């Protein structure tokens, strides 16, 4: 991985942000990448004062433009001040943990837009799964999460629980192109260099096929320094995977993500989204 690229960490001040920063520290210590803490100034572009007079006065365009931009200016200033506080406190934590390669930045717009714009500079994206409005026990996903994940082709780490140093990774393997990509990334140690306990779990209606997939994955993965455990299962994929997560106290679930288009997700619901919603672990998504 190119060293000039960095880990983009989305800081939104939600309950999960603190834990996310710690995961970022954990990861950066292993792979040596720079951490970029990013807070998005998201404008509502809504006006608090609506006028229902319904009439058009002379020079209305000018007056309205002035009024709206003045109002948004105040909103922006407040958001920027708040954002600065957030990223600076996160930055201090990173520095205190002994990492010097850290930048803190604010950007206007939305998170998916920012990821799209910074595409060429990002090596890795780390986000919290819940937006600001959710508490940590809520099952909801962040408003922009799916769009943000779709906006990048780098791996995405989704923090979902309080920080504990991760040791056990469940790798959901189904032989698809994205999951093959995931395998090679993990094998090469691009993401995390130290050794972990990796549980390769293959779920298929045909148990034979699941077993052969598991073997296939194990062969490739055993070239890395990780210890590999395999498990073939049959039944409902999400149910089997989430049960396995609980039984084995998995810290991170790694899988290929959003291989279908947006339209497919619109009609059938996305597997990735459902999986994240129904799990308690953190996620490592490979695009």
């Amino acid at each position, binding site marked *: 991985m190119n060293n000039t690229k960095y880990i983009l960490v989305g800081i939104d001040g939600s309950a999960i942000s603190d834990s996310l920063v710690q995961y970022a520290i954990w990861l950066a210590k292993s792979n040596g990448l720079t951490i970029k803490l990013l807070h998005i100034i998201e*404008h509502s*572009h*809504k*006006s608090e004062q*609506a*006028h*229902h*007079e*319904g*009439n*058009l*006065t*002379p*020079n*209305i*365009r*000018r007056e*309205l*433009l002035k009024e*709206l*931009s003045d109002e*948004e200016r105040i909103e922006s200033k407040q958001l920027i001040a708040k954002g600065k506080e957030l990223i600076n406190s996160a930055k201090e934590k990173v520095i205190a943990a002994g990492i010097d390669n850290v930048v803190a930045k604010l950007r206007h717009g939305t998170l998916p837009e920012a990821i799209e714009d910074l595409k060429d500079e990002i090596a890795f994206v780390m986000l919290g799964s819940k937006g600001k409005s959710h508490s940590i026990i809520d099952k909801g996903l962040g*408003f922009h999460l799916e769009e943000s994940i779709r906006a990048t082709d780098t791996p995405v780490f989704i923090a979902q629980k309080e920080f504990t140093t991760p040791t056990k990774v469940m790798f959901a393997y189904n032989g698809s192109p994205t999951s093959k990509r995931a395998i090679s990334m993990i094998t090469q140690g691009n993401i995390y260099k130290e050794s972990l306990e990796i549980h390769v779990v293959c779920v298929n209606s045909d148990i034979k096929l699941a077993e052969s997939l598991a073997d296939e994955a194990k062969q490739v993965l055993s070239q890395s320094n990780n210890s590999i455990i395999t498990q073939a299962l049959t039944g409902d994929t999400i149910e089997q995977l989430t049960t396995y997560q609980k039984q084995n106290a998995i810290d991170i679930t790694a899988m290929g993500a959003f291989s279908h288009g*947006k*339209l497919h997700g*619109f009609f059938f619901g996305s597997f990735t989204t459902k999986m994240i919603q129904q799990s308690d672990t953190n996620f490592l998504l490979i695009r």
Partner: protein
Amino acid sequence: MLYSPKSDWFGNIKGDVLAGIVVALALIPEAIAFSVIAGVDPKVGLYASFAIAVMIAFVGGRAGMISAATAATALLMVTLVKDNGLQYLLAATVLAGVLQIIAGYLNLHKFMSFVSKSVMTGFLNALAILIFMAQLPELTNVTWQVYALVAFGLAIIYLFPYVPFVGKILPSPLVNIITITLIAFYFGNESMGIRTISDMGELPDTLPIFLWPDVPFNFETLKIIMPYSISIAIVGLLESLMTANVVDELTDTESDKKRECKGQGIANIGSGLIGGMAGCAMIGQSIINIKSGGRGRLSTVVAGVFLLILVVFLSDLLKIVPMAALVAVMIMVSIGTFSWASVKELKTNPKSSSIVMIATVIVVVWTHNLAYGVFTGILIGSLFLAQRLSQFMFVRSEYDEDSDTRTYHVVGQVFFNSSEKFISYFDFKEAVDKIIINVKRSHFYDITSVAALDKVVIKLRREGADVKIIGLNKASETMMDKFAIHEDPDAIEKFMSGH
């Protein structure tokens, strides 16, 4: 086309619903007034406004922008309706929609970059003047009572918002309509010579139904409607894209212009198929929507649906509304659309900008076609630009006695307009050994400029000098390789004999 982020739809529910209602109330008088302009029954404009507003909410590229039946497009239909009737208008509307969709696929929205600020100001001013002029038939040869009602209506529109509390909740154009209607009804419309909406033609009494325009499906029909459809498609897109820019600026958000072009097309097709006339985005209404707190797609749907509910269920009440009340609303729209600052700026802006703006206005008012005005504005603006670029082109020279060399340094843009000037800088009477033409800081754009350079080189060589050109940049060089002849003996022969 149909996919929009959820926040575009439900990011601002309360604001959108309230704003949509305000907009619907203001859309009704406008739709009726524009039907009158086009010479069709009010229901044609009302159905159009419903169809366009609702459909554009789904397929448009600019959330929060209001589209409906408009003055700009209505003005283009007058003769078609007069000569061929309503069915041809509906067919022309559908065809205009098809053309707009094609324009969308061809990325024609990119041509908007040619529309300068001056042209846009001219467009808005001309539109305001046209809307005002369209009210004149209601204001000439009428009784004094009509003038009194219009004046009173305008007073309500501008002053009612200052009334404490209610002034901020009730849309003043609506208060105007209700008050004027009550006054006129109390004193008796007919006895005072006051015309009402019912004098203008049919109002909708049912929900719209799908109808294929009743025209012969042949080449003859196409020949009749095509010119109208082209005008409508162009003017509709111009006003829509300009309005999108206005809304972009006001809300500090971005719109998808390509999608807007296609969306306008789809909305017009839909309008034509339920008996509505062609329309486009409306600057005045979009501003009212933003001012009222509308931002999302929901506001447009609410406006359209609420409008339809109102007119279908209140058509008996609408009939007795005096035209004077509508005229007051339209004068308000005209005043709000006109850029009053542009009058003041005539003194301070560069003369060329003012001329472009005024020319745009004059051509529109003269032809009643906003597209002609915009093209005129673009053309004049381009001529001024060409003139300006030529002014910045010059050639200076120096003479080196030891080598008997004259070096010419060309600076600036050499193209059709500056070629004559370019040639005039060279002294062909001076007899020197060597001549160097340094074109490093210049650019040769077209074959006229290349021919001019050729002419200079050939003429100087003819006078016995050795001519060398240095510093051709890449772009100019390709122009030269393709079209210059001064290096090709045969071509030189031909060139010289031809002149």
